[in-house]
Structures are given as structure tokens and as C-alpha cells.
């Protein structure tokens, strides 16, 4: 297949997704007796109605979605069903906040780098628990990473009400991180920060590494067929699985660090509105291709920004986005499954 045909197919897929989303959502809203026109207007306004909406709404939300989407895509590629990006994101955010608040007082670049490092390290460490459980104890990672998500949620809850709470002990959050740890914003009036650029770079590096490095090859082979990888390719499957967990966790942890340093500037309980779960939809829509994670992440960023505006301006509950995400994944599975069945009957 030529490059332009691939591009065309991806484009068609995106258009189909958007049409399905709009149609399904409108129907759902009509059934629930919301005004679909008003909701639609609020949605479009919130997602891309203005430069401010595009930058502060869509792209700011796309940043963690691209990063966690990459985390999920890389893990799934290696046959690791890491559904724990949410917990790894939270641990990354926690580590970055801790370093920013209690770490050494250095110049801005050094502090930012140190926070990133801490976020990635703790994210990877959190994922490594699931990696050890799988490689040594044969524990299904879908279960272990979900359990770790809950554990991370309660750990953050404890920290922001206990040892890391702001000095007046009124609000369940940390004090704001120092300016030195904040990420610079793009010029203009929006809240778009350097993290978006970093997400694009991360996607580029992942895409390149997956195609052009031996490690990327080992990952793909292991994901496709671990037995063949081990016997024919002499690949140490256990090591590849472990690195898939670690890289995935590091990316999700870095996403958490970037969120704290670019958007929230403090740690609190609901710092992630479920980015780690949406990431699964992002990765699957992108067919686990790191380059396609970028447009998929932006699309979901627009969905989330539009949904938030819809709740604010038209009273439509924003959890409706989860319905869309799930419908999207199921739609992809069905189209793949139906194609498969069709081929079987030929």
C-alpha cells in the first residue's frame, strides 16, 4: 500500500469517527431530552471555537492524552496490557510535585529536568510492580495495574490531606510549586505550554525507535508472538516485557509531571479526569502507531474540551465522553472482526 493510500484511509477513518460521534451523541442527547443544537454549539465553541479554546482547551488536554496514549501503544505493541497509565500518571505527578516543593533549589532548567526525571522514574517504578508480578508470579497485568491505579489514587488522597498538604491545612492539595519548576507557555493568550511540544517530540522518538532500532523490533516481535520471539529470535522475552512496562510507565509518569508543571501547578486528588483510561482509546484509534497517536490524542483532547464546555453551557454531563470512547473502541473491534469473518467465508 502506498503512503498516500494509507494516509487516505486514516483520514477516512477519522472522518467516520467524527461523524459517528456527532450522530450518536446527538441521538443520545435527544433521547435524554437535552437540546442537541445548544449542546453542539457549546461543544464546537469549547473545542475549537477560538484560538483560546483550541490552545487552552483542546491542545492542553491533548498533551497528557498523547503522552499516556504513547505509553499504552508501546505497551500493547509488546503484548503488555498496561491499563495502569492512570496510576503511573498519578505517581509521576506526585514525584514531580515532591521534587519541585522539597527538592534542591536550582535554576529553572535544572529543576524542570529533575522533576521530569523523578516523574518518569516513579511512573516506571509503579509499572515495574506489575512487571514483576507478571514475569515472576504470572499475575495478569490487567488486574494488577487496575489494583495499582486504585492504590495510587488513595496514596495521592492521603498525601494531599497528610504530609504534603498546603501549610494552612484547609484544602486537600499541596501548595503551588515554585515558578522555577513551571513549564514556559507559548506566546499568546492561551494556556498552551511547552509540554505539548515535548509530547510531539516523544511521539516522534517513539515512532522512530519502534521502526528503526533493534529494541523496537524485539518489542514488536515479542508482542506478535512471544514463543517465536524466544525460540526463533533468541529474544529474552522476560526482559522485553519488563522494558515495555518500564518505558510505558515512564511515559505515563512523565505525562503526570508535565501536567503538574504545565497546567495545575499543584497536586490534588482529581488531577487526572481519567487520562490514563482515555489513553487506551487513543492508542487503539491510532492502531498502536506512535505517529498516529498525535492526531488521535488531539481528537480526544477536542472531545474532552468540547464535553467540558457542553457541561458548563448546556448542562450535559461530561461523562458522556466515556460512552463515545467506548463506542469508538467497540466500533473498531467490530469492523475488524467483521472483516475477519468476511475473509473466513471466502
Amino acid at each position: 500500500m502506498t503512503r498516500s493510500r494509507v494516509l487516505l484511509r486514516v483520514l477516512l477513518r477519522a472522518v467516520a469517527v467524527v461523524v459517528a460521534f456527532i450522530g450518536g451523541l446527538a441521538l443520545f442527547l435527544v433521547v435524554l431530552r437535552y437540546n442537541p443544537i445548544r449542546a453542539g454549539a457549546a461543544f464546537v465553541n469549547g473545542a475549537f471555537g477560538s484560538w483560546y479554546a483550541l490552545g487552552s482547551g483542546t491542545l492542553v488536554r491533548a498533551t497528557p492524552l498523547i503522552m499516556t496514549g504513547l505509553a499504552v501503544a508501546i505497551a500493547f505493541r509488546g503484548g503488555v496490557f498496561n491499563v495502569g497509565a492512570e496510576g503511573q500518571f498519578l505517581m509521576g505527578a506526585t514525584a514531580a510535585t515532591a521534587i519541585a516543593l522539597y527538592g534542591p533549589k536550582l535554576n529553572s532548567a535544572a529543576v524542570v529536568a529533575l522533576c521530569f526525571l523523578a516523574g518518569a522514574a516513579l511512573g516506571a517504578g509503579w509499572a515495574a510492580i506489575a512487571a514483576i508480578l507478571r514475569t515472576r508470579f504470572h499475575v495478569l497485568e490487567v488486574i494488577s495495574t487496575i489494583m495499582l491505579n486504585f492504590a495510587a489514587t488513595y496514596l495521592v488522597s492521603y498525601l494531599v490531606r497528610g504530609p504534603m498538604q498546603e501549610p494552612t491545612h484547609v484544602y486537600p492539595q499541596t501548595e503551588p510549586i515554585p515558578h522555577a519548576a513551571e513549564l514556559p507557555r507559548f506566546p499568546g493568550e492561551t494556556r498552551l505550554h511547552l509540554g505539548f511540544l515535548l509530547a510531539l517530540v516523544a511521539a516522534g522518538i517513539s515512532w522512530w525507535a519502534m521502526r528503526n532500532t533493534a529494541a523496537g523490533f524485539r518489542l514488536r516481535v515479542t508482542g506478535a508472538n512471544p514463543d517465536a520471539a524466544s525460540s526463533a529470535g533468541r529474544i529474552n522475552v522476560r526482559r522485553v516485557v519488563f522494558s515495555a512496562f518500564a518505558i510505558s510507565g515512564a511515559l505515563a509518569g512523565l505525562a503526570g509531571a508535565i501536567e503538574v508543571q504545565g497546567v495545575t501547578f499543584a497536586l490534588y486528588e482529581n488531577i487526572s479526569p481519567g487520562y490514563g483510561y482515555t489513553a487506551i482509546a487513543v492508542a487503539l484509534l491510532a492502531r498502536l502507531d506512535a505517529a498516529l497517536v498525535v492526531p488521535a490524542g488531539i481528537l480526544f483532547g477536542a472531545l474532552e474540551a468540547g464535553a467540558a464546555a457542553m457541561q458548563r453551557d448546556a448542562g450535559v454531563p461530561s461523562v458522556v465522553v466515556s460512552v463515545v470512547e467506548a463506542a469508538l473502541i467497540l466500533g473498531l473491534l467490530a469492523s475488524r472482526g467483521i472483516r475477519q469473518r468476511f475473509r473466513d467465508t471466502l
Partner: protein
Amino acid sequence: MSALFTAFLASAIRTATPLGLAALGEVVVERAGIINISLEGVILCGAFGALLGSTHGGVVGGFVGAVVLGVAMTAIFAWFVVRLRADQIITGTALTILAMGITGTLYRALYGAAGAALSIPTSRPLAVPGLSGLPVVGVGVFDQPAVTYGFYVSIFLLWWWMYRTLDGLGLRAVGESPSAARAAGIRIARIRTLSLLFGGAMGGLAGGTLVLAQAGTFAEGMSAGRGFIAIAIVVLGRWHPVGVAIAALVFGAASAVQYLLQAAGLGLPYQLFLALPYVLTLLALAGVAGRTRAPAALAKVDDA
């Protein structure tokens, strides 16, 4: 002391009932070679179905609603996994997200954005005459809501069905060796679909228990990982109904320890107790999972 023990036992069984019900359903599903990760979503839908049903038909209507929505949810799963042979993990994850979104949206749309505290009819404890008078364990074990007695009975019914009937043998064959089962004339897709629907009914019942026999209300995301814990309990119970029931009770007991600890007033942070079930699950799986054997065809789609 004995009052404390009674409270402890009652609390252990209360925690164990929904987990055990869902896990018993999942045993059948996994013995047919399928892993239903969407069990979490099934329980949540069951809880929502209980809310819908009970506002119209009382406690009984609530349980009917719970089972209907639970079965409906797994019917979708079955269509994807059995008919289309879609990946079980991805389908299950998507359906859990779907359950979160649909129950959350409908709840806010139907019952108001604030989600006002609803008070719905609840299933009160029924003391079994005679047995509830037993010393030490009587009140804890035999003064429970009706659904708990259903749980006790279903353990033995399921054991009998799985190990003493031809259909039970067929089920186990499908999970161990689909090709041999097919050669013996067993319709694999049919067995798997029926198993899933049964698992959906049990998962729905578990969600109904949360609403009708415990919380007395619905809250968004109130399944709180119980579906995943139930799947872990199936592993801990080694895919055997009695083992699963014991694992659920042990899990309930371990969770009930938190009430004893809180009563002891050690001043530990409450988040520690909230996180306990999840950490416990991880530790238990690490201790047991490597030493048991899952049904040979579990989660493999291609060989059907």
C-alpha cells in the same frame, strides 16, 4: 468480645457476598475459556439496574433490573468475543468504560446533576429461625439479607452442576480443550455464550446486592474495582466454586479487619483502609497465582 466478633463476621460476609456472587459467575465463564474483564462494568450496570428497578418494583424489581442489565451487558461482550472473535481484554476494557459512561450520564440525566441522595427500598436482614440462634456464628452467618442465602446455596448448586452433571463436564471440556470438546459434538460457541450470560446474571446480582442490600443508594462508579477483585478471587479459589467461595470469605474477613483496626483507634490514615482491598488482592495474587493452573484455553480466541 463476642459482640465484636459477631460484627466482624457479619461484615466479612457482607463484603464477601457481592464479590462471591460475581466470582461464581466468572468461574463458569473462565471454565468455558473466556475471561470477562468487563465484569466491573457488569456489576456497575447491575447496580444501576437495581436503582431503576427498585424505584418501580421495590426490592424484587430491583434485583430483576440488576440481572437484566447485567445480562444485557454480557450479551454485548459475548457478541464481540464469541461471534466476532474480538480480543477479550480490549473488549472487556471498552465495555467497562462504556458502563461508566452510560450509568454516569443516565444517572445525572434522570436523577439530577447533584445526584441527590436517593432513598430506595432495601432488602432487610432475615434471620433464619433456629440457625440464627447458634452461639458465636449464628447472628453473623444467619441474620443476613436474602441474597446472601442465595449466595450460600449457589455455591453448592454450582459445584454439583460443574462436577456431577454431563453439561458441567462439557463446560470444563470447552475450557480445557476446545478441539476435543468439538470432536465430542459440543457446540462451543453456544456453551461460551450461555456461560457468559450466566456470568452476567451473577455479576448483575452482585451489583444489585451493593445497592439493595448494602448502600441503599446508587453512586457513580460504585463498583469500585470489585469486578477486578472478583476475577482475582477466581484465581485465588483455583477456578473451583467452593474454593472461590472460601477465597471470597477470606477476602471479606481481611477487609473486615479494617473495622477492628478502626475500632482499635490506632490513628492510622483512613486512606490506608480504603486502599487495603486492592493491595491485598495484589499480595494474594503474588502468593498464589504462579502455583495454580488456569483452564488451558483461557483467553485464547483463535482455537474455537
